[in-house]
């Protein structure tokens, strides 16, 4: 489990303590669901985001 309070503080993100405690468990559960998908990614797999150097300009 990550220390979300420390992450927020370290990144200068201002989230009130009561709001942080409400979302910490949700984020922990999401991390647990997500992490197994990442562990075997091969290096040549590129992200599914778009950047085109020849972007059309109106």
């Amino acid at each position, binding site marked *: 489990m990550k220390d*979300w309070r420390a*992450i*927020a503080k370290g*990144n200068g*993100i*201002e*989230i*009130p303590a009561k*709001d*942080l405690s*409400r*979302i910490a468990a*949700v*984020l922990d559960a*999401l991390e647990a*669901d*997500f992490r*197994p*998908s*990442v562990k075997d*990614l091969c290096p040549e*797999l*590129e*992200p*599914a*985001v*778009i950047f*085109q150097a020849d*972007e*059309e300009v*109106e």
Partner: protein
Amino acid sequence: MTISQAAQSLRAHRLSAVELTASAIERIERLEPTLSAFITITAERALESARRADAELAAGRDRGPLHGIPIAVKDLFYTRGIATTAGSPLFEKFVPSFDATVVDRLEAAGAVMMGKLNLHELAYGITSANPHFGPVRNPWNPERSPGGSSGGSGAAVAAHMVYAAMGTDTGGSIRIPAAFCGTVGLKPTYGRVSRRGVLPLAFSLDHMGPLTRSVRDAAYVLNAIAGHDRSDDTSSRHPVVDFVPDDGCSISGLRVGFPENFYFEALDPDVESSVRGALARAESLGARITPVRVPDIAAHNAVGRIILLAEASALMEPHLHQRNHFGADVLALFDQGLLLPASDYINAQRVRRQMQREFRKIWSEVDCLITPTTPNTAPRVGDLTVSVGGRTEEVRMVTTRLVRAMNVLGLPALAMPCGLSAHGLPISLQIIGPAFEEATILRVGAALEDSGVSIPPCPIG
């Protein structure tokens, strides 16, 4: 009356566009105090458009099936000179200087715009219990949620305030309100419909599509709005076809996939029996029902949530210091997104590509999949948890369980009503197809609808 029936009546001079519009205004004024489906009603402007539509038809200028038909759009679509609030006080005074491409195309097709529809705040949630503009209510039972985020769109179509409404779908936000309100809802392929001029929630997951009273009506709207838009980087040049299924269209021999895993687990029993009934109907129409195993959809959902949280928080980051401008549920999601590391977002987009490749293999076995749209029927307004199939879970997690993965994959998905629960609430099935195969899923939907897979009209007023 559907769009095609109204269009026939207009051309047979049994009705005028002004009469259709006046009738819609009367219905909106009567039902709006109960439903809160609209944020802005543009009655005068609509009557003016209707008069123009009638004059054009009389002069022999026919713009097609949407000509003179009353419609409305979610208040996320930019409308020139009309406030576009996104259901948030942040945008309460925002008046765009241009129309969204979708709005442009609908108006070019002759549709009569009735106004801007209520939604979950910033389209970031599935209840449409908007704390700033009032909670949208379900026309089937105002004590129930209409779903969201396009809740006003679902309510307005189900209550026959308009013939069609535009929604957006980032994690199920067209299909969920369609399911809970008993309408058809179409999420086209990512890139099929322009995103220009629609306030984003998550750039790489947002889809625009119609909610309608019938499957063919959804196809008429898609015909009007589909196609490449050079001002949207993600807009596809894939060829646009006529999406409207023929009368008496056949699905004989079509391979309809029935997922053996995930999609039929932990369902409301009424939902399960209705969707299985529709599958049996498809088989009786000659479709080959083919059991298939789908990849890990729970993992797809986790990837979708990471991408959504990160993109949405990046978008709204400049406003997040104004914490009192956000509802508590929405603010909690934005806070979560701020705490995710950039590496999680990038890796989620990498996993997404891998998932896209794996899922593509299914299309060598089947032509489409049929699943339930939601495991549950409309929850009570204000309920935070729901028990379905022996499990008690957060309403949001249950309701998005079967729809979110198709935003990750960008695949077209059609929600259509297929029964009523013991409580008299709509049940919906979802037809999923390969990328850019909207014509196939609409054909399957129309064939089912023609064969009697449908529900009675909503009984409200």
